[in-house]
């Protein structure tokens, strides 16, 4: 897991928003899902995850609620606000533009 490449600066917010948009989820779940979906390629350090979550909450993109998990424990579940959904769309479009551009350069250079 340590070998997994570190996340590009700024993309963590996008990933978190995307994961949370799939449905209410707690912090551990987010880290787990990112790892899972990326097939272990991306690892999120707790040290970056929680600051990012709080930042997003502070900005009004996420809201949180304490709720019981399937195992019957209390956890803080995050959901995306309307503002967060708009932000997700904007960041996704931005990411696709940048990724497309990078892809283009990489292909041209071959």
């Amino acid at each position, binding site marked *: 897991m340590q070998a997994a490449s570190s996340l590009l600066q700024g993309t963590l917010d996008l990933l978190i928003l995307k994961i949370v948009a799939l449905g209410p989820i*707690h*912090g551990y779940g987010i880290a787990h899902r990112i790892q899972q979906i990326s097939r272990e390629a991306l690892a999120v350090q707790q040290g970056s995850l929680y*600051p990012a979550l*709080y*930042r997003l909450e*502070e900005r009004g993109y996420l809201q949180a609620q304490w709720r019981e998990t399937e195992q019957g*424990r209390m956890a*803080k579940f995050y959901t995306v606000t309307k503002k967060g959904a708009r932000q997700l769309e904007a960041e996704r479009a931005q990411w696709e533009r940048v990724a497309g551009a990078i892809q283009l350069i990489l292909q041209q250079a071959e």
Partner: protein
Amino acid sequence: MHWLRPLFRRSAVEREMDAELRFHFEQLIESLMAQGATRGQAIRQARIQFGGMGQVKDDAREARLAGRLERIARGLRMAARSLARSPGFTAVAVTTLALGIGANTLIFSALDQAILRNLPVQDPARLVAFRSLGTNPGMDRNSGRKMSFSYPKYLDFRERAEVFAGVLARYSTDGSLLYNGATEMIDVELVSGNYFDVLGVKPAGGRLFTPDDDGNPMDHPVAVLSYSYWQRRFGGDRGMVGRKVTINGMAMTVIGVSAQGFQDVERGQSEDVRVPLAMKDLFTPMWPGGFKNRFWAWLNIIARVKPGISREQAEAGANVLYHQILEDESKNLPKGAENLRDEFLKRRLDLLPAGGGISTNGQDSSAPFLIELSAMAGIVLLIACVNLAGLLMARTAARQRELAIRMALGAGRFGVVRLLLGENLLLAAAGGTLAVLLAAALGKPAMVLLLSEDAPSLYSTTPDLRILLFALGATLLTAVAMSLAPAFEARRTQLADILKSETGASVGRAQVRFRKALVIAQVAFCVWLLMTAGLFARTLANLRAVDLGFERRNLITFGIDPTIIGLKPADSIAVCRRIESTVAAIPGVNSVSFSNFGVLKSGMNIQQIKVPGYVPPRPGDAMAGELSVTPGHVRAAGLHLLAGREFADSDLGAIKTAIVNQSFVKRFFHGENPVGRKMNDVGAGLDNLEVIGVVRDQKFWGQRDEAQPAFYIPNEFPAAVSFYVRTTLPPENLLDTIRKGAERQAAGIPVTRLGTVEKALDLNLSAEKQMMRLAGLFGLLATLLAAIGLYGVIAYTVARRTREIGIRMALGAGRAAVVRMFLRDVAIIIAAGLAIGVPTGFGMAHFVREQLYNVKAGDPWALGGAAIAIGAITLVAGLLPARKATKIDPAAALRWD
């Protein structure tokens, strides 16, 4: 209010964060165990992954504090915690600031009200007051300032000057007001009908005068009350409008009350009642009429300049008209003044800014003192700021290591600045708050001390907000500057050096040097302040010791004006005679007289005279003061008879005799014995007076007065007079008996200003007293601040050199040697401060030269006294920490890291 939550519910938020992270941690362990790890392994692995719970929480917290408000609050909380750790420093810094800001706010508030503030009228900047210097043939009331004009001149300006939107005239006098059986002396202002219109003052009730109120003499028995008089005398009774009151014996209708806050066009004065100019004769029975006389100067003229015209343009325009007026008038100069024609035509009109009020009496009240006081307050603020700078710098230096560590850990230069900024701003805010409380608590007594002891009610005691903000701004600026300094400092010094060095000794040297320079500056400022206090103390002592030319002890005076209830001259004299004999019969009273002249009060006529054998240097330049006195005056007033005899009862009646003073003899008789010689043409029909005696010069206008030629004539003055009562018993004990006796005979006429002359003379010095008291107070305050500053520097040096001292002592240096180490520093600082302060102070003293009396600006006593006082106090402050250094235990110092 959701966004406020994290600010106030810190612990709840913390708990929530804990719970969330613990949940995550446990999930991680569970998942690791699910993959086959033992619990112990899982926990260890989870710890590694988590990378330190504290760090995660810190970062998370940081992210949470992204809100700007919270970041500031956090900074302040940190600052408060940090300040609380050094309560001594905090107390000194806050006190320094509070004193500096508080003193400034109070003094500037007083200054503002006394000098700077404009009249509460419409657009005060466009008001101008008329003044014309030069010769004026004929009578001149309010002569001191050359600000009086005749009624016909006023009409000329009002009707013909095109540069003005309006021109008003006023004459300030006094009178009596009888209402509900009680008579009271009142300040009366005779005003032109357009007075309130030109000023733009609105009524608070009823109506104000209109140009219709300028009419035939005595046809307009109406009065407007000032707001404060209405409140004071009538309790703000709205029913007063339309009611009749008796003013100087005449029934007059109150038609209105002027706006609140409007006291007078004269600076620092107040009027009780305003009456149309047409009613003049009621108040000036001694010189009735005069509305047609072009050479009776008695009215102050104030005009409103038209919009779009500058004061200079208005002055030029008004002078063209003034010259035409003078040309016309010069054709009909009064008899005997024809030779003044050329001088007369040279007169010019000055338009003085009058937005802040006019000053007609020649005494600019306490204005000059207030300016010096504000300079002093400024210096105290400067010292306070310098002290603060020194304190902050020392604190930063002492925390060099802490700050270096913070920077090494990545706080960044800005982080450090932010930390210091938080602390310093908090200090400034605390100091400011304390200053406001101080100013509010001391407002009233301070204003009384600063402005006038008798009329503090004229001034508001609320500190001025703008001034408060200014002082606060100055200290904030200091605080900010001092917060930024370490950021630049840090760039120069190698962080590694600081971290390596044991005590940060090498780093502090430049700062110590700078702080020493600051203390030197403070000592120099203190010299200025204490020296000023010394100069005024000497002035006061000199003024108290001045020979006034009469015996001031055992002398009581009081005033009375029988004409204000409308008595005719003969009746007025009768009342005064009765008072004279009644008071004279009181046991303990030696002699009594009355005169038109009162000690420290005007009333003297300046007369043009002729003395056979005397040729004036310039035509018309043979003026002398004339005082009407009753026969007992030389004894009662305590004049010193040098030659001839005093008046006898037989001199009353047709005035044929006069007593002259020394200056008169010197001027008109070339110092020869004048007894038996004659004076001619003494105005008011007096001629051929025989000089029967010579008295010593009397200082008429107070302790600073220069002697002036004057003569006394035996005459029972038939209007406002001052009584002189010479006692054999202590005068204080007789005041009540005299008041009762006088009031019994006065039958309803108010007896005013009853008191001992000594007290009146003392009151006359209140400005000097205030100045001395305040300069002394400021000086001590400043010296205290400087002492604190010096103490701080030396204490810091001692702390820095603890190791060195320990080594020296271990090697056998005695306590005296240790004290000497620092004594040199202390001595150099004090000597340098004095060396700068004394010569510059010598220069500064020239600014107060005008207010000094028989003291040179470089008075050795004042300078030496200030230098010694400051030297002694700062020496003690500097030696205290040095003494502490001798208590250092060498063994402990060497172990000390």
